[in-house]
């Protein structure tokens, strides 16, 4: 049974594409057959983050319009054998998407035996974001511990609960998960930043992961290697934990407390 997961947020720039890339790799690494689709037509960047921007021949809109087959458009990842990327069109915009077209593509992916389809949503609440979430079974709502991001995520949660196929058909609704990104325990300790509990209280949901603020994310984007594949990074470990929790494991949250400096570190600095 193919599971469709939408990665959305409302607010822009919080880490949706970074998360889509890392979650897809994390799942593929565990042997799942995964397709990750960029719904941000006209402003595509999933291909950059995945490092396959120079291999895009056909894109999502081409498939919808029948210019090519799905197999021709799917780009096989060079690092992970069961991972495929469907890039967005750069020359068109969101009006090129249609509900029928999206449904056909998702049905075809299911027929091809994909275990997971990750839909990387654009920011906002218009057509692109709406179509990315419409057919989802699960949602990962990416939130920064910051007031505007939290407010926008609340809005998105409202839309997930009302304007999706599962909500309309009364199929139990879309299963919602919160992923906190760009978390800085140090700033939370000084009271500058909202804590995990603050966010949980306002949004009324448990988190599926907390990804710490990390300079590795920028390096990852620049090099086209999703951050989860950088074993040395805290962000990578956090994403890996999130993947485990998505698959049903229950793990304690890491990276939420300020790292305690040892005696020598405090005495001699560093």
């Amino acid at each position, binding site marked *: 049974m193919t599971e469709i997961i939408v990665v959305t947020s409302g607010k822009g720039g919080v880490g949706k594409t970074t998360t889509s890339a890392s979650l897809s790799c994390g799942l593929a690494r565990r042997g799942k057959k995964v397709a990750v689709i960029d719904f941000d037509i006209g402003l595509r960047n999933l291909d950059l983050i995945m490092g396959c921007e120079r291999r895009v021949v056909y894109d999502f809109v081409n498939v919808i319009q029948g210019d090519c087959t799905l197999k021709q458009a799917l780009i096989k990842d060079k690092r992970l054998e069961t991972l495929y990327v469907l890039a967005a069109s750069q020359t068109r915009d969101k009006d090129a998407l249609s509900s029928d077209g999206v449904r056909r593509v998702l049905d075809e992916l299911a027929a091809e035996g994909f275990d997971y389809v990750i839909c990387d949503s654009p920011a906002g609440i218009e057509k692109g974001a709406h179509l990315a979430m419409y057919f989802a079974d699960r949602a990962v709502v990416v939130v920064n511990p910051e007031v505007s991001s939290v407010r926008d995520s*609340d*809005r998105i*949660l*409202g839309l997930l609960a009302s304007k999706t196929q599962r909500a309309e058909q009364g199929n139990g609704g879309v299963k919602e998960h919160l992923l906190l990104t760009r978390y800085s325990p140090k700033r939370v300790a000084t009271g500058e930043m909202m804590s995990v509990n603050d966010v949980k209280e*306002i949004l*009324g949901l448990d988190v599926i992961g907390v990804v710490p603020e990390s300079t590795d994310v920028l390096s990852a984007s620049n090099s086209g290697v999703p951050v989860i594949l950088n074993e040395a990074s805290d962000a990578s470990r956090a994403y890996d934990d999130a993947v485990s929790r998505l698959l049903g494991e229950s793990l304690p949250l890491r990276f939420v407390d300020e790292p305690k400096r040892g005696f020598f570190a405090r005495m001699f600095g560093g």
Partner: protein
Amino acid sequence: MAVLLSDNSNMMMNKPADTSRDASHESAIDIRFGQVGLVQVRIRTTDPGVILDELTGRIATAPRFFERTAVCLDLSALEKSPDVAEVRGVIDAVKRAGMLSIGLTTGSLGVEALSGALQIPVLSHFRAHNQSVPVVQPPVPQPVESAGLPALMHHQTVRSGQRVYARNRDLVVTAVVSAGAEVMADGCVHIYGPLRGRAMAGAREDTTARVFCHEFHAELVSIAGVFRVFETIPADLAGKPVQAWLDGDKLNFGRIGG
């Protein structure tokens, strides 16, 4: 009857409960959008004498109500389009009766030209009540007939941007009302959880309606159109069980359970 008077007002928020103004001005001018109730005067003749007589007679029964009231002139009931001089005469008669004409309604021929010549604005067509309002006192709001209808129950979080409206009955919410969300009812609004958004009770002028909540962090509360915005929540109410009710024109807030 040569003159028809009617009142119109916006349903949800037509007057603020608390008119204290912020005294600190940074710029010389603040421009804001507001909504006001306006008296509309529909005339069937342009004879200033007749107009003045009738208006004076009406006003005599409630002089304070009409003193220097802003009115909007509706010329659509006249048999033929008036010219500038005639309308000037009407405005003058209305002024002598103690009221000030501040605009013309749309919907009559030549109104744009008149507006230009007289230098008063054209205001959009009113959705006026068609029966004439008794002049002696302001219209009595009819409490909504909500007998027998069970309350509308809402058990999910009301998220930012969502709106829940209970028509002709009370609303009961057993979850959170997030910031940016709106919960409204013609009857009372009961929130068994935190209220962080807007709550509007008595949406159809039921002044007896109340708002109740478990944890008060509201952005705005309104009862029968009388509203109060909370830029900061008073310490004695913040996060506590609170109810709001209307006492005449005053919106009161108090702890529930003492």
